[in-house]
């Protein structure tokens, strides 16, 4: 099915299942421990041996020697795989650094070996006996120091509209400020984990991966075997946040270990290994310049961002939202990339917008204060319903103003004291902050296969993944809606590369795109079923388990009387994204208390008002948004990979050192979805929502801290040491 013109009325609009708060259908499996995760595939690989990954202990240089003799001789050891004996390995298209080092080492904890043994303990103990000698080389580990050498990457290109320099220079009110965000780690609950088994030259990998087809392609490319010889299976994933978008060392080393050991092998990265071995969100330095008239109209807006990555890597695209979020005739965005020899930077929790808005939405708050305007009013005055660079190109839907207004009412924004540091409750200084949420809506080709079984069950097969987001449930809702069957009659099978290729989970494109693909396949099944029943598929209605044309009504199950019906299709998106700017919007409101003595910041309550197209399942959408708000709080207040700039690695590489919010940090969250349908986005009229939830949260927290204390921190995370010096005197 091609989606080339805005959707008209279709079976999804019945809203019998879609849009209803629906508990996740995989919940019972998860709560009873019967949902199989990658490291627990005893059902498929009962005799799996254990692989333990050994990471490089230098950040850059060469391996000069590996002595595996003691490790090989240790009890239970079946194989030790290193670059010396792994055979020729390629590199996946999506990987920047190789997944197995040797002789070159590209970053700290880059895998240098996997030790395979009968038990986990034996593998771990033998790994300690492996001796690796290195010749370290000098590397670049400090973004601020490397900033001057940064260059423009291929993507994204810089943008210029009007004459930014002149407009900024002549603006009556202006801001020129620099903000920094640190390196961050996904810190998902389930570590990277894979179980691999070979049979007749083909390998099956039960893994934890958000993008099955990317992983399959890159596994084939790395092993140098045809894609047809690789199967990835990933039905349940314990969180990804971008950290599992790609083929990683666990999967490759499980495959190599299994080949060497001649039996299935499973590999999970240990927690201390995850921070430097896998990808992370790169640190940024962002300069923002805004010029405005005295009545608060932006005349110039410029956003430049610097980040670093390994040679051949990509930039954190933190300036992109600034092309679209506010009006203004003169505009500039620029992205610069430096070479750093830290571990590989890549996508994490709304890459681009999440760190970009952490900077931009403080700048807007600062600008509003300079103008003497309420920060909500300043945003409203600079709203735009069109792409500022191409006014002929409207937003498909844009309810930012409504999000901010409703949020202000619900949150009690009018009680905020615009003068910072004035509200005190006991030992707490209390402040409120607001920020706009913005995340582009991306659509991706997505396929699915439908089976109508003789027993009446409808089976959906797609390689779409559910990383805890609720994909199983919204896909079941989509099939039930389109085929007119009860939800419990739908069986959803996900995350297997033998199923049709889907959009996968990333960039908040998964929910809308994958359900649209399932919708397309369901429409195909309707054709097949109606044809089988001798009914006109164009006129047939599928309701209550029956197919009806006028007075002629038959049970749907009759269509499968002679055997299972199978239909497969995909959704493919035309150029609507060129004609319309598709984005999602929201308003984040945060109240914090800051201890007047110690400057500890504690969030008291949070509200997000979101406008993100049709909400397919308010229950799972809310769950995603509150999770994202929690991550945004972490980014604002505590998450930071601390770079040891001498040795070139993230020093706080465990969950004691890399702090994420705990329950006590998140006392109260509320989420509101505005009514919205977006016929431009897909037949589902839905958009992405998960990542919208994090975009802007950090700045809303920062702005609340400023309102509470009068101390403006432009360097995340906002830890108490950055506040202490400026704190008001304790009375």
């Amino acid at each position, binding site marked *: 099915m091609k989606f080339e013109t805005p959707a008209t009325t279709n079976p999804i609009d019945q809203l019998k299942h879609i849009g209803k708060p629906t508990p996740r259908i995989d919940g019972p499996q998860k709560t009873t421990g019967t949902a199989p995760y990658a490291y627990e595939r005893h059902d498929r690989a009962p005799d799996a041996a254990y692989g333990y990954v050994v990471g490089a202990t230098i950040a850059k240089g060469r391996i000069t020697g590996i002595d595996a003799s003691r490790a090989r001789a240790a009890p239970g050891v079946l194989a030790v795989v290193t670059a010396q004996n792994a055979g020729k390995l390629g590199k996946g298209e999506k990987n920047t650094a190789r997944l197995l080092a040797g002789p070159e080492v590209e970053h700290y904890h880059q895998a240098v070996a996997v030790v395979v043994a009968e038990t986990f303990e034996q593998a771990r103990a033998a790994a300690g006996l492996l001796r690796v000698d290195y010749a370290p080389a000098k590397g670049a580990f400090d973004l601020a120091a490397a900033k001057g050498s940064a260059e423009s990457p291929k993507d994204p290109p810089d943008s210029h509209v009007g004459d930014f320099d002149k407009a900024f220079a002549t603006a009556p009110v202006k801001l020129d400020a620099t903000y920094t965000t640190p390196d961050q780690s996904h810190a998902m609950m389930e570590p990277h984990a894979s179980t691999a088994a070979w049979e007749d030259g083909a390998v099956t990998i039960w893994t934890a991966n958000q993008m099955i087809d990317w992983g399959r392609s890159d596994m084939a490319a790395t092993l140098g075997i045809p894609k047809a010889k690789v199967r990835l299976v990933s039905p349940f994933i314990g969180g990804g946040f971008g950290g599992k978008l790609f083929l990683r060392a666990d999967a490759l080393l499980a495959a190599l270990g299994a080949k060497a050991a001649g039996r299935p092998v499973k590999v999970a990265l240990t927690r201390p290994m995850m921070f430097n071995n896998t990808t992370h969100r790169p640190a940024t330095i962002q300069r923002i310049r805004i010029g405005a008239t005295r009545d608060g109209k932006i005349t110039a807006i410029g956003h430049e961002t610097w980040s670093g990555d390994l040679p051949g890597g990509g930039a954190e695209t933190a300036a992109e939202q600034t092309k679209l979020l506010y009006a203004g005739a003169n505009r500039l965005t620029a992205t610069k990339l430096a070479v750093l020899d830290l571990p590989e930077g890549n996508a994490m929790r709304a890459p681009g917008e999440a760190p970009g808005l952490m900077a931009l939405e403080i700048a807007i708050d600062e600008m509003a204060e300079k103008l003497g305007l309420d920060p909500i009013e300043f945003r409203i005055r600079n709203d735009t319903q069109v792409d500022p660079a191409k006014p002929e190109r409207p937003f498909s839907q844009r309810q930012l103003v409504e999000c901010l207004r409703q949020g202000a009412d619900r949150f009690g924004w009018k009680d905020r004291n615009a003068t910072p540091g004035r509200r005190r409750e006991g030992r707490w200084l209390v402040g409120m902050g607001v920020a706009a949420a913005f995340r582009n809506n991306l659509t991706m080709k997505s396929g699915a296969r439908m089976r109508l079984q003789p027993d009446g069950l409808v089976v959906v097969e797609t390689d779409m993944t559910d990383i805890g987001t609720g994909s199983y449930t919204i896909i079941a809702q989509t099939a039930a809606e389109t085929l007119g069957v009860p939800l419990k009659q739908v069986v959803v099978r996900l995350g297997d590369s033998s199923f049709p290729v889907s959009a996968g989970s990333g960039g908040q494109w998964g929910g809308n795109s994958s359900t649209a693909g399932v919708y397309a396949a369901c429409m195909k099944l309707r054709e097949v079923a109606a044809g089988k029943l001798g009914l006109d598929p164009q006129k047939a209605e599928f309701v209550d388990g029956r197919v009806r044309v006028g007075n002629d009504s038959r049970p749907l199950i009759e269509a499968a009387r002679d055997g299972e019906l199978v239909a497969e299709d995909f959704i493919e998106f035309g150029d609507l994204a060129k004609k319309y700017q598709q984005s999602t919007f929201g308003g984040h409101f945060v109240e914090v208390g800051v201890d007047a003595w110690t400057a500890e910041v504690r969030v008291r309550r949070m509200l997000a008002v979101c406008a993100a197209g049709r909400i397919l399942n308010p229950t799972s959408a809310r769950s995603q948004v509150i999770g994202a708000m929690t991550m945004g709080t972490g980014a604002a207040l505590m998450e930071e990979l601390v770079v040891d700039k001498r040795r070139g690695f993230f020093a706080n590489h465990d969950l004691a*050192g890399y702090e994420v*919010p705990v329950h006590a*940090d998140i006392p109260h969250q509320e989420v509101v979805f505005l009514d919205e349908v977006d016929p431009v986005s897909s037949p589902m009229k839905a958009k992405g929502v998960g990542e919208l939830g994090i975009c802007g949260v950090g700045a809303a927290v920062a702005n609340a801290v400023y309102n509470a204390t009068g101390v403006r921190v432009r360097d995340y995370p906002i830890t108490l040491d950055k506040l*202490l010096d400026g704190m008001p005197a304790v009375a």
Partner: protein
Amino acid sequence: MRTFTYERAKSPAEAAAAVARNPGARFIAGGTNLLDLMKLEIETPAHLVDVNRLELDRIEATKDGGLRIGALVRNTDLAADKRVRKDYGVLSRALLAGASGQLRNKATTAGNLLQRTRCPYFYDTAQPCNKRTPGSGCSAIGGFSRPLAVIGSSDQCIATHPSDMAVAMRVLDAVVETVRPNGETRAIPIADFHRLPEKTPAVETVLAPGELITAVTLPAPVGGKQVYRKVRDRASYAFALVSVAAVVQPDGGGRAAFGGVAHRPWRVEAAEAAMPRGAKAVTDQVFAGARPTEQNAFKLVLAERTLGSVLAEARG
């Protein structure tokens, strides 16, 4: 984790003798710290002597009106003990400020005192660390030092002691009771129990090889308002940047010990006379001679402000 042998001790003296007999042996009780360190090969004991079945799990009144806390009393039970809550509130509060419910259910009184540092370089066996590998150097000096010591450190080590409980025990003048491999017992004031790193940061206490903690005694209650204030980057389940254990008397006098700042709970009794004059008067003396790093100099300001907060709270 390396392979090790294991035995279960039948008496405290036997346990001490068993550890003394086996070079590289360690006692194991709750195991909440030791097992993690063994998995990471930071600790590689060849032999473990399990003391969990020794009957050291009671809290008893002492003749002079104090409490004798068995070495194996779990943190949860100690925090919840009615006598502790009534007369030694700072200890109960300190315990509840530490770790998580699950960990406190396992962690013991003696084990808590013997926790090892949470310095990130101590935890990464690829990095030099004088505490883990004597003579290899200190990676934290010049590296990531924000959470580390500001006073009492040396050129060899700037690690902190991570315990909350020990800070409260320090302010309460607890005494550590031990038995040695030869069966002799001794009582060590907590002020003398933990060592500063100096030239031998791997040696963290004055315990002799094989010496087993059997109990910690608290003197008779000292009354006063008892506060434990732990300052950290998140609301729970984090180690202290700075903590203050304080006993404040109605006349404004009192005692204060500091956590998160040194290789041991940090208390300077001579400074406490200044308490009626406010926090700064105390911390100026307590932290005289401090040697913070650029990253953790804020702890000196924070310690003063935290004590100020505690005094304000205590004086209502």
